[in-house]
């Protein structure tokens, strides 16, 4: 951990709000991204990220400085999102968010934006087939390049449980991808007048 960040952490643990806000600014993107990947909805992700920082603020005095702050923060976010998912049990995205992702913005590079949106949508649709804990494990593994040990710490699971969850998730993702491709091929074939 770099000295500046450690300094901020010590100050935040002593009740310095400004120091905590600077930590929020530093970690807002990773936390928001995790929430967005877990919940698949921009508004819910924002609410979850705000809630994560509030919970972190309340528990900052109990944070052990020997642990990674990022892992600690992501652990809070992942647990909150898993709880939210369990409450909702709805894995599909809201239509507004779907439209938001499908319709490209008027950015200087619309093709690149469109391609990125398609990729984002495709990943999100794949992730939605996983159960919340498996999804959290995959997100931490691929977006944050966490090791199995770090994932086990963040999700409070044993390393062997993380390995088995990752295996199950990868298998499910591969199968889901293939079935999506099959569905797309079938739809194109049905829509083609020659058939």
């Amino acid at each position, binding site marked *: 951990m770099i000295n500046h960040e450690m300094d901020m952490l010590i100050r935040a643990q002593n009740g310095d*709000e400004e120091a905590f806000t600077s930590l929020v600014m530093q970690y807002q993107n990773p936390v928001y991204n995790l929430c967005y990947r877990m919940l698949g909805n921009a508004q819910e992700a924002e609410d979850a990220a705000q809630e994560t920082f509030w919970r972190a603020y309340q528990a900052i005095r109990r944070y052990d400085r020997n642990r990674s702050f990022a892992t600690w923060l992501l652990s809070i976010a992942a647990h909150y999102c898993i709880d939210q998912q369990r409450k909702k049990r709805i894995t599909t995205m809201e239509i507004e968010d779907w439209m938001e992702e499908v319709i490209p913005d008027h950015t200087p590079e619309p093709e690149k934006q469109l391609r990125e949106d398609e990729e984002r949508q495709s990943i999100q649709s794949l992730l939605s087939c996983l159960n919340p804990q498996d999804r959290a494990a995959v997100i931490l593994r691929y977006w944050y390049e966490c090791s199995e040990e770090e994932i086990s710490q963040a999700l409070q699971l044993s390393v062997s449980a993380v390995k088995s969850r990752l295996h199950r998730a990868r298998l499910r993702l591969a199968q889901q991808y293939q079935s999506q491709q099959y569905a797309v091929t079938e739809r194109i074939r049905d829509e083609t007048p020659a058939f």
Partner: protein
Amino acid sequence: MRHLPFENWIFDREKLTPSQIAELEAHLQTCPQCKHIQTGWKEVESLLHTPPFTPAPPQFANRFQASLAERKAKRQKQQVRIALFTLGGAFIFASMVFILRLFWTVPPARLLSDIIGWITLAPQRWSEIQYIFYYWGSQIPPLALVALVFLLAGWSILLLTLWLLTFQRLSKLGVRGQ
């Protein structure tokens, strides 16, 4: 056909030795199921290889600061309320004890003997209550008794069904927007 080591190997290809890779390739030639997983995983892996990082919306930290101030004020109010309720409750309790002490004329020994008396008389009181119920029960016409039982059973079933439905709905769907 045996799939287990090969399924694991498909996902951890980078950790395999050259001989294991050769074994996996040979298996993939003969096993359509593993081949199917391998093809799917390759595509998924390329999607996950450099996944786009969704940044937080603009002004996120400012909104956090605003909500932090709001939540702290709310928590403070809550703490003040709890403290006031506790103090108020303690004051009322102390006042009641004081008033009771002023008007209390019965000595503690008498109070104790009364309590023992009530406890020892409890079985007798219970049998008296039972007698009253049996007596009045025998006065009610049998048809009215059956109607009463049906009415009570009907209401119980209706309320129990409603409770179960609500419980199931809340536990499955949760409360949206919370």
